[in-house]
């Protein structure tokens, strides 16, 4: 490790510690109302979801377009367990933490089964397979009224938890804020370690060139599957938190449009940076809140924003902050290209 690396590492450490401290005191500063604190919770939950997605996309090169399947599985498992509908399980699972554990395990198992099928194919076919399998799950839940509540869903009411004399009321915004924060921080540390581990380095090699990775002895599919399961697990975890906040779990949590959210957040934030998905999630929640208060056509505004961001800043917000121009096209070139018939300076980048 070079001196520069070490310096960079310590800077990262200081920055992250600072961020965590700031988040810890945030509720006490009074800057944010209960409602806005709630938005921060939403952003944190979605950030976790997006990070789990980016573990696949940014670090293993797999565009999952069905990531909501695991998010939704986590949410449904929690809802069913809390609702006491999983009669074959001991009643202990009707309380929050055991139910959460169960939900995460079930999400991982579903990811294992579906992932096994998905990793058989690469590139765009992988994306379509993930989409198709998640939509199969969606349709099943949507029509299986008796067990899943069909399109109406299942309401989720997390009873207060007794924890060694302490009562955690998850309905309380402050309490849930700290719970989410704790889960998020632990997950971030885990994922950070993961991508910087030898294992993570091999994931990168798969992202770059799966065929070559095989030829250096990487069991590519097994790695892809393991990353898929890990990503699915975290997505499931995010799903459980989401369920508690929404008071209901509906099939929409598995719909492709839900899968599109982490994709959008990650690309908006910047898939090449570790914090990209987090920034993207915050930006997304903020934009939605901001725009939807101005106009009921807020998605129109969102679309109007996405287009230039992708065109001019493909590295997302992180890219803009870093000051990389490196757009797919340069704004000036683009504009001059519109006026004259000058070539846009686009290079022929074969392969």
């Amino acid at each position: 490790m070079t001196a520069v690396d070490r310096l960079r590492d310590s800077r990262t450490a200081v920055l992250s510690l600072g961020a965590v401290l700031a988040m810890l005191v945030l509720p006490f500063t009074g800057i944010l109302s209960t409602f806005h604190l709630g938005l921060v919770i939403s952003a944190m939950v979605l950030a976790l979801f997006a990070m789990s997605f980016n573990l696949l996309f940014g670090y293993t090169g797999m565009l999952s377009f069905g990531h909501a399947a695991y998010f939704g599985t986590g949410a449904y498992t929690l809802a069913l367990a809390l609702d006491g509908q999983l009669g074959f399980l001991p009643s202990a699972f009707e309380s929050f933490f055991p139910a959460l554990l169960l939900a995460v395990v079930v999400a991982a198992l579903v990811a294992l089964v579906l992932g096994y099928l998905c990793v058989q194919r690469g590139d765009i076919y992988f994306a379509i397979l993930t989409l198709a399998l998640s939509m199969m799950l969606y349709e099943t839940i949507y029509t299986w009224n008796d067990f899943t509540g069909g399109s109406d869903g299942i309401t989720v009411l997390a009873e207060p938890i007794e924890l060694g004399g302490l009562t955690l009321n998850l309905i309380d915004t402050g309490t849930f804020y700290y719970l989410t924060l704790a889960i998020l921080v632990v997950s971030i540390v885990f994922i950070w370690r993961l991508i910087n581990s030898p294992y993570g380095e091999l994931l990168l090699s798969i992202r770059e060139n799966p065929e070559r990775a095989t030829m250096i002895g990487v069991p590519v599919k097994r790695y892809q599957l393991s990353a898929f399961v890990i990503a699915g697990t975290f997505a499931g975890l995010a799903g459980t938190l989401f369920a508690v906040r929404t008071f209901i779990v509906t099939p929409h949590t598995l719909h492709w449009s839900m899968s599109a959210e982490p994709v959008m957040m990650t690309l908006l934030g910047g898939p090449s940076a570790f914090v990209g998905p987090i920034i993207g999630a915050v930006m997304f929640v903020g934009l939605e809140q901001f725009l939807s208060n101005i106009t009921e056509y807020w998605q129109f505004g969102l679309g109007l924003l996405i287009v230039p961001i992708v065109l001019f800043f493909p590295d997302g917000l992180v890219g803009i902050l870093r000051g990389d121009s490196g757009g797919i096209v340069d704004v000036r070139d683009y504009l001059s290209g519109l006026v004259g018939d000058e070539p846009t300076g686009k290079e022929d980048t074969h392969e």
Partner: protein
Amino acid sequence: MSILTVDDIHTYYGQSHVLHGVSLDIESGESVALLGRNGAGKTTTLRSILGMTPPREGEITFKGEPIDGLEPYQIARRGIGIVPEERRVFPELTVGDNIDVVMDDDGEWSKDRVYDVFPALREHQDQLGGQLSGGQQQMLTIARALVTDPDLLLLDEPSEGLAPNIVADLKSLLSDVLDTGITVLLTEQNTEFAFDLAERAYILSKGDVAWRGDIETLQESDDVIGKYLSVGAVEVD
């Protein structure tokens, strides 16, 4: 009369400045070699000429008219053909279709004529380009460039990956091509091949022209060869 002049061009890949003022001057009917170590900028020079990576500064004139700022296809249509470095055949077209799509019907080179030069292509004419062996692909790219009926042919390491007998054939083919009056600008690592074919050479080093002159002079200048090409050291036996 010069067919191509490249005047002080600067070319970039994104931020990285690769060509630092390369100038070339090529007479009609000549064959010129562009030599230099890996990474010297040979390929980039060819790509600049054809507008594939347009230079940010400098000027390129072909047949007396400036061609910078044009799209590659416009430049190509004025009479420049290219054989690229990494055999870019159209992988999902058959050999025959690879040739058909770029064929200039009024040109000198017919399909039969290139098949006569490369019988292997005739044999595999219905096979997909992507399923050819490396060497077969190389033949196909040369054939494909010829049927566009170019006045100037840019060859980026044409002998790479070809069996010795094919290299020999190629050499005589290219001499024939030169005899028809086509101008050739080629890059080569196989210096022997380049020496046999070219009349003049430019040596690039770090994106700039480091030496220019006749092939005979070059063959005698051990210092230049030693400094920029180090031929000879490898003569085995």
